């Protein structure tokens, strides 16, 4: 008998100090949650993939952490007075990772591929105002739009529209090539994506790191243990309940930043009871959004009226979000023909813990106002097919979009592409304000219109916009030069790790 409990225990105890040294100094190891499905940036749809998009590739423009639009592969751009013709001047001498020079033909090829329905590019509908893309010379790209659009330069900073070599599209799924600060080395689904420094990157002196590893670790407690043990340098997308606790640790730093990602109770405006605007308004009166933020987000977020976050200059700050008034809510419900209140199921997505918590929070908070909600749990993977746009009441949410127009118009305009998947909302005042805002390049006009939109929405709610949620990441203190980006991706050009 060679193997006894004692020998097993002994062997275990003899293991101390078998710890792997870090793969290499100056390689940043980041914990993410999900395997990347797509390596072609045009086809990416999840936050884990967007991190990679922004490390390996560049767009024509770039969105900085303060949400301003900056030049990237385009040095400068101009637009016609009617906002229908845009011209972008490209940087000279930018090289793809395989050594070819990036020129306007690559940009044109990308947008042709995006707009071709056969590509089935997820974000195609964001760009359907583009009617033509041409390359007058190797360093100039001209866009013709079917309708005036003031935010073109802004949405060209988005996650999917990254420039790739026109003759290397076939290999993007397995051996992607970009112009970005880091080059693709290898990808093992379920394990890690390895990137190395692009020594020929077009901005001199960048990046500082020798490489980046995205480690795919689904279990959050394990990710945090790995961070504490020094096996990871960064944990992406920290659960909000961990923010205070981890920030208290000596060798860690937690950043929690405001974003424009929102969650809401989606109400179907076509079927009873929420086809009656009074009922929707009564729900808004019944629940205090400030309490929702405390209970659902542990304070890591802010109440909002629409997808425009309170941190944005276009937010309607003069509209005060009132505390709950259950008596007034019940009175309004009675006027709408529901003297005994309303009993209705609320569907929450299993696998999205924050949104599940929001459902339970609303169930508790809406009760005194006459809403008896019964929480039903449906797997998130079934949501699109079963729940979206169909159920009378459910919890859903959307990540921040690159511009205020793309964050609001598709969701709240009566003809918006997302409106039909959510509430089927129709308010002429909201429609008018959204249309006017997109037709103007003038920031002051846009601001006036978006405030008018929020005012109309507040008086006739589409559903219950609960909050905009913070985005938090945890870093070891050995990591420097990173600003946590509200769009949930990373700009690691200046990052360092010691």
């Amino acid at each position, binding site marked *: *008998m*060679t*193997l*006894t*409990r004692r020998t*097993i225990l002994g062997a*275990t105890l003899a*293991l*101390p*100090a*078998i*710890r*792997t040294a870090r*793969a290499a100094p100056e390689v940043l190891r980041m914990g993410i949650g999900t*395997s990347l*499905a*797509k390596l*072609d940036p045009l*086809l990416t*749809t*999840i936050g884990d993939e967007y991190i990679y998009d922004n490390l390996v590739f560049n767009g024509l423009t770039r969105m900085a952490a303060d949400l301003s639009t900056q030049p990237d592969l385009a040095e400068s751009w101009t637009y016609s007075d009617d906002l229908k013709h845009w011209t972008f001047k490209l940087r000279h001498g930018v090289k793809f990772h395989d050594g070819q020079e990036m020129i306007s033909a690559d940009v044109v090829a990308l947008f042709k591929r995006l707009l071709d*329905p*056969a590509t*089935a590019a*997820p*974000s*195609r*509908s964001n760009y359907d105002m583009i009617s033509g893309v041409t390359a007058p010379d190797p360093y100039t790209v001209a866009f013709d739009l079917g309708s005036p659009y003031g935010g073109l330069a802004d949405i060209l900073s988005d996650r999917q529209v990254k420039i790739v070599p026109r003759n290397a599209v076939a290999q993007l*799924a*397995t051996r992607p090539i970009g112009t970005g600060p880091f080059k693709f080395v290898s990808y*093992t*689904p*379920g*394990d*890690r994506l390895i990137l190395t420094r692009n020594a020929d990157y077009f901005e001199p002196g960048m990046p500082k790191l020798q490489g980046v590893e995205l*480690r*795919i*670790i*689904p*279990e959050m*407690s*394990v*990710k*945090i*243990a*790995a961070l*504490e*043990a020094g*096996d990871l340098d960064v944990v992406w997308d920290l659960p909000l309940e961990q923010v205070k606790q981890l920030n208290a640790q000596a060798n860690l730093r937690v950043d929690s930043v405001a974003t424009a990602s929102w969650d809401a109770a989606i109400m179907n405006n076509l079927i009873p009871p929420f086809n009656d605007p009074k009922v929707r308004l009564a729900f808004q009166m019944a629940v205090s959004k400030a309490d929702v933020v405390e209970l659902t987000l542990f304070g890591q977020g802010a109440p909002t009226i629409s997808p425009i976050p309170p941190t944005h200059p276009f937010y309607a700050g003069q509209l005060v979000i009132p505390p709950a008034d259950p008596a007034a809510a019940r009175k309004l419900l009675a006027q709408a023909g529901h003297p005994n209140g309303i009993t209705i199921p609320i569907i929450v997505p299993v696998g999205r813990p924050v949104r599940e918590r929001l459902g339970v929070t609303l169930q508790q908070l809406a009760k005194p106002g006459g809403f008896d909600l019964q929480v039903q749990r449906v797997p998130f*993977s*079934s949501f*699109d*097919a*079963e729940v979206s746009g169909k159920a009378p009441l459910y919890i859903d949410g*959307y*990540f921040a979009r690159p511009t205020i127009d793309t964050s609001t118009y598709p969701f709240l305009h009566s003809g918006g*592409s*997302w409106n*039909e*998947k959510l509430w089927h909302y129709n308010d002429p005042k909201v429609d008018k304000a959204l249309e006017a805002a997109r037709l103007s390049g003038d920031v002051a006009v846009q601001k006036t219109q978006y405030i008018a939109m929020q005012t109309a929405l507040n008086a006739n709610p589409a559903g219950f916009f609960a909050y905009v949620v913070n985005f938090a990441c945890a870093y070891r203190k050995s990591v420097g030069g990173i600003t946590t980006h509200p769009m949930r991706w990373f700009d690691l050009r200046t990052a360092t790790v010691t």
Partner: protein
Amino acid sequence: MSTYVARRLLGVVLVVLATSVLIFAIVHILPGNVAYAILGEYATPAAVATLQQRLGLNDPLWLQYWRWLAGFLHGQMGQSLVMDRPAGPLILDALGRSAILAGSAFVIVASGGIALGVHAATHQGHVSDRVMTLAQFVFIAVPDFFWAILAVVVFASWLHWLPATGYAPPADGLLAWVSHLVLPVIVLSIGLLAHVSRLTRAAMLEVLRSRYVLMARAKGMSERRVLWRHAAPNAMLPTITILAIDFGLLIGGVVVVETVFAYPGLGRLLVFAIEHRDLPLLQAGMLVLTTIYALANLAADLGYAALNPRIRYRAAA
């Protein structure tokens, strides 16, 4: 014996085929499909329709199944719809890593379980037997994922002895490779080890009370010889059956352990395929697993026959 093996092999093929039909049907009953999974939060009705068309999801189910089966019979594992790359290399890669995990665990479970079980049976009522019994109940009753998280918290986060997660390729050095395997293998083995040793103890106790053991002792045979020549082979029969069944549990445990420890094996790949409704990837992966499980059962039956002549002769007759 050879007709017995041939008949059982045919059975394996039928089981695998039936499983493939079953998986195909189950994935189609689930709400949503791969088009929704690929488009994610961009799944507008128009985009879903275009993608379904392109992926051939509008064809009749039997045609989709036949297309997959025909490809498979031509030696193609199919193409992962979500990752746009051949499923074969993805699966083989992951299978290799899972095999290291499951193989190490199985060796520990089989050898350790039998050794501990025999020890407990021959030391019935001693302190070591009682402590072991208590430990066995705890390890059987508490599920894998609890031990997994506990192991990470204690050995990685607190004691800093072992890496919390992942996998190091052998190229990183033998030490790194082994150190990443220690926690997953222990967690994977511990419940089954308790199970197998518990069962071996019971079987062994029964055999030790039998008349032929009394007879062997009576004719003055050494206790060691009685134990290993006469008692153990008979006590092994139920253990082998249990090991074959536990092999299935082991495969299930691999999925849990790989997820918690972020170990890039076949279990994780299958979870990914299910979440994304990536049917070709799921089919190919399940086919590999079903085949392995069916072959493990076959091996157990053959082992049984080798240890027990009665089965051998009945099958040959």
